[in-house]
């Protein structure tokens, strides 16, 4: 269970938000909505432990995430607006490296399957640098078919995707939730995702 209490975030001398708190249980989905610059990405980065909040805390199964960092990080998959891909490596290499960095041993066939799941199997052996923006995004998202972590934090996962891929990804998210996973996403698009419980957090600047 993820519990968030009284978060405040300061960027420069501007207060992005304060008193943000919520609980997310197994099978839960949460949308984080708000204008550009309202601090959605900053909130997600705080939840990942990449950014220290000005006030408040984030707790994973009752423990603050900056104490039991390793346990939390093993349960966490984060895809930010940066893809985290190396242009000089192939899609397959990128995927395998990121999976192994997260602690999953993955062989070629499994990795290929996950690329195929989101429709970029043909790009498997191409260096990522030559791919289009949408293809790169899909290679990054292919990690979601490999990871076994319970909490997914996704920053605009649907941006730059075609409608077919949006549906595939939405289905994958639904599957994750039905297995007891949790997802926190920001999105601009209307996408139906099935979850046991859905909540919305609106940040206003």
């Amino acid at each position, binding site marked *: 269970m993820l519990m968030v209490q009284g978060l405040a975030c300061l960027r420069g001398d501007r207060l992005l938000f304060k008193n943000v708190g919520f609980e997310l249980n197994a099978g839960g989905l949460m949308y984080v909505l708000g204008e550009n610059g309202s601090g959605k990405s900053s909130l997600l980065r705080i939840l*990942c*432990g*990449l950014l220290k909040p000005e006030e408040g805390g984030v707790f994973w199964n009752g423990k603050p995430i900056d104490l039991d960092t390793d346990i939390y990080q093993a349960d966490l998959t984060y895809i930010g607006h940066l893809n*985290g891909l190396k242009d000089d490596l192939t899609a397959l290499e990128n995927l395998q490296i990121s999976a192994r960095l997260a602690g999953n041993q993955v062989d070629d066939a499994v990795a290929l399957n996950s690329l195929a799941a989101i429709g970029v199997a043909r790009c498997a052996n191409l260096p990522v640098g030559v791919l289009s923006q949408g293809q790169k995004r899909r290679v990054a998202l292919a990690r979601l078919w490999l990871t076994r972590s319970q909490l997914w934090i996704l920053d605009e996962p649907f941006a730059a995707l075609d409608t077919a891929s949006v549906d595939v990804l939405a289905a994958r998210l639904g599957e994750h939730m039905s297995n007891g996973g949790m997802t926190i996403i920001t999105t601009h698009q209307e996408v139906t995702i099935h979850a046991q419980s859905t909540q919305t957090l609106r940040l206003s600047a």
Partner: protein
Amino acid sequence: MNDAWLIILKRDLLLAFRRRSDVATTLFFFLIVSSLFPLGVGPEVAVLSSIAPGVLWVAALLAGMISLNRLFAADFTDGSLEQMLIAPQPLALLVLAKILAHWLVCGLPVVLLAPLIGLQYALPNDALLVLVWSLLLGTPTLSLIGAIGAALTLGVRGSGLLVALLVLPLYIPVLIFGAGAVAASQHGMSAQAHLSLLAACSLLSLVLAPLATAAALRISVE
């Protein structure tokens, strides 16, 4: 668990291999800088061999420094640094792997090339050997300390020059011991003390620098 360390090492070496020209740049820089001095000072053998230890070491220092920007910059812009920070692995260990890769790619070639340049400076064989040893023991410290500077200046405007300002003063002990070792052997003295001190610096920075670099990365990525 610790194989994440190996993955990062392999990945960085693979990336360096696919961008071979970048590696060559460091080496050429070392070559050019150390070839400028005879042109500036004049070709007298006595003068050249007396300035050789200092010149070669300073050139190695600068070559190590100009390559520092690349240590984390690409990872920072493409987002793989974020992924490293939230990986369930000790960050200092991953950082150490990156530093090792950087040294293998930018430091080791300089160590191997140095004796050739030393010949141009009319260094005797003993001194050449000490030169290689001193660089071998000293350049890892340069990469380790440099990594702290590279991490601190990540994404900062004018980071190339800033890194020089931050890192060069911290390089001074290595320069003194390294160049001193070669000079000692030139004068027929033992370089043992110098080399031991270099090794001590390396060990100390091996322990402390990855931790400091990891902390700096967390600060810079925020």
